[in-house]
C-alpha cells in the first residue's frame, strides 16, 4: 500500500494532475463524423481505466466502440473533451509525436494485420526494429515472445500457412514484444472458432496478470459472461453501463 502511495505522489508531482493514476482517462468526449450529417458517434464519454485493469467494451455495431478505440490510438481526435492515455493528452498531440506514443500501446485487430510477405519471426521483429532495438536484443526478445504465445516452433512460417488462431498469436506477440503498458484488442476473437477464442482469451488474461492493462472490444457474449471482468457497455454513442464483474447486456 505504501508503495502505491509513493507511486501516486511521484506521478502527481510529475503530471500535477490527479488523473495520472489512470492509464486511460476520458472526460466529456464528443466525436462526430463529418460525413454522418453531424450524428455523433460518441457523446459526452467519461471513462477512467486504472493501470493493470482488464476491461471489456461491448456494444452493437454503431454503438461507438470502434470510434472509441480509434480515439485511444490517436487515429482520430476528439471534437471536444479530454483524452489522456499513458499520461499523454491526445487532443493536443502533434502528428510527429503520434509514432512515439503508439509504442507505449500494443494493438490487436480482428483481421490480425500481419505483413503477409514476411515470416512469423520478422513480423514480430518488425515492432522491435521500429523502436531501434539492436539485432542482438531482437534475437533474444522475439523467440521469448513467440514461446510465450506458444508459437516457438513456427517462427519460419508465413502468415498464410497458419491458422486464424495462430495468426492472432503472432499479432499478439508483435503487440507485446515492446512491453506496452496497455494492450488494446479490437474484436480479437471475431474470426476465431470457440477453441481458439478461449486460448486467445487465456493469453490475454496471462498478459494482464503480468501487469499490462488490457482493453478488449468484443461482442462475444460468452467470453464476457464467463470471464467476470469489468464491462463497459456502449449504445448509440453513450455509455449505457459500466460494471465491475459485469455481464453482456442484451437489448
Amino acid at each position, binding site marked *: 500500500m505504501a508503495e502505491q502511495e509513493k507511486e501516486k505522489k511521484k506521478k502527481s508531482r510529475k503530471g500535477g494532475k490527479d488523473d495520472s493514476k489512470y492509464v486511460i482517462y476520458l472526460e466529456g468526449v464528443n466525436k462526430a463524423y463529418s460525413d454522418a450529417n453531424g450524428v455523433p458517434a460518441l457523446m459526452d464519454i467519461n471513462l477512467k481505466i486504472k493501470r493493470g485493469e482488464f476491461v471489456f467494451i461491448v456494444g452493437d455495431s454503431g454503438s461507438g466502440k470502434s470510434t472509441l478505440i480509434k480515439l485511444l490510438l490517436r487515429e482520430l481526435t476528439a471534437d471536444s473533451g479530454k483524452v489522456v492515455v499513458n499520461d499523454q493528452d491526445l487532443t493536443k498531440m502533434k*502528428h510527429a509525436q503520434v509514432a512515439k506514443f503508439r509504442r507505449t500501446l500494443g*494493438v490487436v485487430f480482428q483481421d490480425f*494485420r500481419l505483413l503477409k510477405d514476411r515470416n512469423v519471426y520478422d513480423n514480430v521483429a*518488425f*515492432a522491435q526494429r*521500429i523502436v531501434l532495438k539492436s539485432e542482438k536484443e531482437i534475437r533474444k526478445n522475439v523467440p521469448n515472445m513467440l514461446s510465450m504465445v506458444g508459437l516457438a516452433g513456427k517462427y519460419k512460417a508465413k502468415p498464410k500457412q497458419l491458422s486464424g488462431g495462430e495468426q492472432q498469436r503472432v499479432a499478439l506477440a508483435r503487440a507485446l514484444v515492446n512491453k506496452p503498458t496497455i494492450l488494446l484488442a479490437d474484436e480479437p476473437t471475431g474470426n476465431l472458432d470457440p477453441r481458439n477464442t478461449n486460448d486467445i482469451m487465456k493469453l490475454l488474461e496471462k498478459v494482464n496478470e503480468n501487469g499490462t492493462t488490457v482493453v478488449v472490444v468484443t461482442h462475444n457474449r460468452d467470453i464476457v459472461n464467463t470471464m467476470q471482468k469489468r464491462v463497459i457497455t456502449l449504445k448509440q454513442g453513450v455509455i449505457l453501463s459500466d460494471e465491475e464483474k459485469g455481464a453482456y447486456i442484451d437489448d
Partner: protein
Amino acid sequence: MINTFFYTLGQGVKNVFRNKWFTMASLATISACLFVFGIFVAVVFNVNHIVKTVEEGVSVTVYFNEDVEQERIDQIRELVTRRPEVYRCDFISADEAWAEFSKKLGENAEGFIENPLEGSENLQIYLNDVSKQGELVGYLETVEGIRKINKSELTANTLTGVKAVVTYVSVGMIGLLLAVSIFLISNTVTIGISVRKEEINIMKYVGATDFFVRAPFVFEGIIIGLIGSAIPVVVLYYLYNAAFAFLQSNFAFLNDFISYVPASDVFIYLAPASLLIGVGIGFFGSFFTVRKHLHV
C-alpha cells in the same frame, strides 16, 4: 541512426524483390517512357546538328565597287563582324577567289596567265541564324561602296522553316511524352499502393515514424528509377550505334550532305538526364504516394 539507415535501405532492396509484379510494371513504365524520350532526344540532336551544319554553309557574299580602297573594305568587314547575327566574316582576295575557282576548273584553268577574276574580291559572311539573313541584307544595302550582294534566299527560308518545325515538334512531343508518362506512372503507383496501404497501416499502428515508413518505399522507388532509366540508356546506346553504322553503309550517298552526331556526344547528355529523370520519378512518385497514407 546508421542502423536505421541500413535497415530501411535493406527493406527497400527487399521490397523490390518482394513485389515482383509491381517492380516489373514500374520498371516497364519508366523504361518505356525514357526509351521514347531517348529516341526523341537522339533525333532532335541529329536534326539540330544537320540544320546547324547546313546553316553554317549558307553565306552572303558581298562584292565591291571597283574604286573602293582596301582600307574601306577592311572597315566594312569590321562593321559587319560586329553585328550580332554574324558568326564569321572572311575576306576573299581576287587571287584567293581564282585559286579556289581554278581548282574546280582543273586542267581547263591552265591557259590563264592573268587572274581573270580581277576585281572579284569579296566578303563571305556566315550567320548564326539564317532567319536573320534578310535583316543583314537590308543593312548591307545601306552601306556605301558595295556593288552587289549575293544571297541564297531559298536555302535560308527553307532552313528557317525546318528549324521552326523542329522546335514545334520538340515542344509538342515533350508535352505529350510528359502527359503520357505522368498518366502511366501515377497509374502504376496507384496499383502498387493499394497493395501497400495495409502494410503502411500496420507500420503506423506499431508506432513507426513517418521516416521509418517512408524510407524503404523511397529507396525502392529510387532503385526502380535507376534500373528503369539504365535499361533504355544501354539499349539506346547500342541501337544508336547500329543505326549510325547502318545509315553510313547503306545510304552512303547521304554522307556527303549529312553528318551524324557521334553516340558519345548524344549520350554524354542523354545518360545523366535519363538517370536523373528516372531517379526523380522514383523518388517523388514514392514520396508523395506514401504521404497520402501516413496520416493514420
